[in-house]
């Protein structure tokens, strides 16, 4: 699933109107390179894919009852996780998505929904 996503991202072809194409031909090489990297930076993961992956990370926690886990689950109120558990969830999400979640943001991730929203809006998530 992740490989498919990665492959699609690599193969993504931009469709530009012809006017822009003409302008591009006139641009120096470095400017074209800069535009290409902006596109890479702007690629975000698909939200439903993020949801699936976040759900499976949380369900993998021994303390968690997988049957109680849903996209709306609140870590503390629904799943009975405490602060140490929540930090472990954040760490597991960092490992799954390959980027570090800053403390100020991690502090606000109290539910699956919030985790999904954060990760799906983070271009560094893999």
């Amino acid at each position, binding site marked *: 699933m992740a490989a498919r996503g990665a492959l699609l991202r690599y193969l993504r072809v931009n469709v530009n109107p012809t006017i822009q194409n003409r302008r591009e031909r006139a641009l120096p090489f470095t400017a074209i390179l800069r535009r290409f990297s902006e596109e890479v930076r702007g690629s975000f993961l698909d939200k439903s894919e993020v949801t699936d992956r976040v759900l499976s990370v949380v369900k993998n*926690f*021994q303390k968690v009852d997988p049957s*109680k886990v849903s996209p709306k689950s609140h870590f503390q*109120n*629904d*799943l*009975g996780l*405490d*602060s*140490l558990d929540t*930090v*472990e969830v954040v*760490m*597991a999400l*960092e490992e799954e998505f390959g980027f570090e979640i800053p*403390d*100020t943001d*991690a*502090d606000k991730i109290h539910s699956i929904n919030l985790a999904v929203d954060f990760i799906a809006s983070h271009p560094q998530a893999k």
Partner: protein
Amino acid sequence: MQRSLSMGLTSLLPLKLPSRMETHLWYIRPDEVKCASLLKHYSQLLSPTEKDRVLQMRGDELKKNALLARTLVRTTIARYQTNSEVDPRSLMFKKNKYGKPEVDWQNYNNCNNPPLHFNISHTDSLIACGVTVHVPVGIDVENKERKIKHDVLAFAERFYSADEVKFLSTILDPEVQRKEFIKLWTLKEAYVKALGKGFSAAPFNTFTIQSKVGTEGCYNLCKTSEMTISSLEKTEKCYEEWRFALLELADSHYGAICTEDDQAGGGAISIDIDTEESIYSVISSSHLSPSCRWSYEGDYPKNHPFRRR
């Protein structure tokens, strides 16, 4: 026969306030509270909002623990009112601007209110409430046997300070290392909770808590700061105004206490262990149904505060 709650309240045993240098720690073990009618009594002490929040928790255990936590806070604080009896139901709470809960004294005559601070901590097997006067307090409890999903050093490297990682990595026995990791967790949490500004105000990797040499259970807080002038040397500044203590509760849990020593008195902290007993019921057992009373009085210990001076 329906027992009136007011009868139950007259048996709330009053408590003497902690002194400025004391923290009182009260705890309860949810698995020791089995009586359904007692739990029902307790639920009548909660505010409507609290009751809703308890009901929103999913699963009976989570509901029970949430109920017991609010009961512990309300009854404990009510017992410290020295002038007149305070109905635990009438206590109001608010949150500071960072979300830390505090008592809201607005309905009471100001001069009679002790400047009480409190903080609670829950694990699924123990709920604790710490109380101080004049100074903020932070409490954290953890089961001693608690295992974490990640490797201890990997977790510490991600979240703890460099000095703490160094300390943990010198411990060769994995079980001892895990225990020290958990102790550090409780101490660090207690500090952040005492500060009351949220996890992100004091990221765990920006401060070190270390054992005070030659003491048992006494700790120091040090923060690293970078000198921005010429050398990029990191200097350690130790903060005497935050005091820590680490205790073992009920043989099963670590409990960390952090308070602000506003007078920066320094000096050694002595931990005086009286008898460790939990607060069971502040409603006299005579108000329970006979069948409940039997099973209950069998395990009923006396209330006793756990003091740290």
